[in-house]
């Protein structure tokens, strides 16, 4: 079955991103397809590559990146939500005259159309919010 996930809450103050991660891992283990993970609103903060996760704690951005590399996942970060939160790729850095981008590898900035597409083509869209 084809799943997409929408994650909305901050990875730093809510469990949503962690719960969604376990859910993604499990559905892939079960042989389902994960069409897209769409990071929206506060959840876009996870794609900042300057995050320094405390030692001995789960490094969620790295965990998502590793899972995405293993399974060629499409991790889409809502561009409007991300840019206003200070998560930008090199293109946006140029456009807004910032010194450099800080988007983590394997995450991609794109528009809400990617969410609409995910809804259109997926059998199930599961929202993780807070």
């Amino acid at each position, binding site marked *: 079955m084809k*799943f997409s996930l929408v994650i909305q809450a901050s990875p730093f103050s809510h*469990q949503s991103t962690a719960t969604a991660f376990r*859910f993604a891992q499990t*559905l892939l283990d*079960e042989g389902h397809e994960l069409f897209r993970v769409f990071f929206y609103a506060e959840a876009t903060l996870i794609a900042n590559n300057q995050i320094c996760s405390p030692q001995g704690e789960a490094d969620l951005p790295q965990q998502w990146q590793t899972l995405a590399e293993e399974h060629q996942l499409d991790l889409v970060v809502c561009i409007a939500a991300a840019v206003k939160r200070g998560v930008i790729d090199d293109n946006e850095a140029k456009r807004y005259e910032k010194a450099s981008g800080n988007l983590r590898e394997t995450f991609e900035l794109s528009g809400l159309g990617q969410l609409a597409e995910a809804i259109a083509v997926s059998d*199930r869209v*599961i929202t993780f*919010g807070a």
Partner: protein
Amino acid sequence: MTLHILNKSPSADALIKRMLCAIEDGDAIIMIEDGVLGALDAHQGLFSSIPDNVALFALEADLEARGITSRISEQVSIADDKQFVVLCSDMDKTVSWY
């Protein structure tokens, strides 16, 4: 048939009341994250209105994290991460309540 995913504790009264209103025969509910606090035996009354054929689950990892696995109501079944995925695929759609 809908899977209702609840991640707020019983202190979110109005939310839970709304969710319960939205339940239909054959639906299922899974409590996750802080939502699992509603699985406590002490909150059994919360779900007294749901039809017999509405299954009620709580996510194992969240019950264990909070140390309440042994305190949950008989009404509630424990679901592991795999069963959570199975529930999502078995039901036609999901609604997240938060």
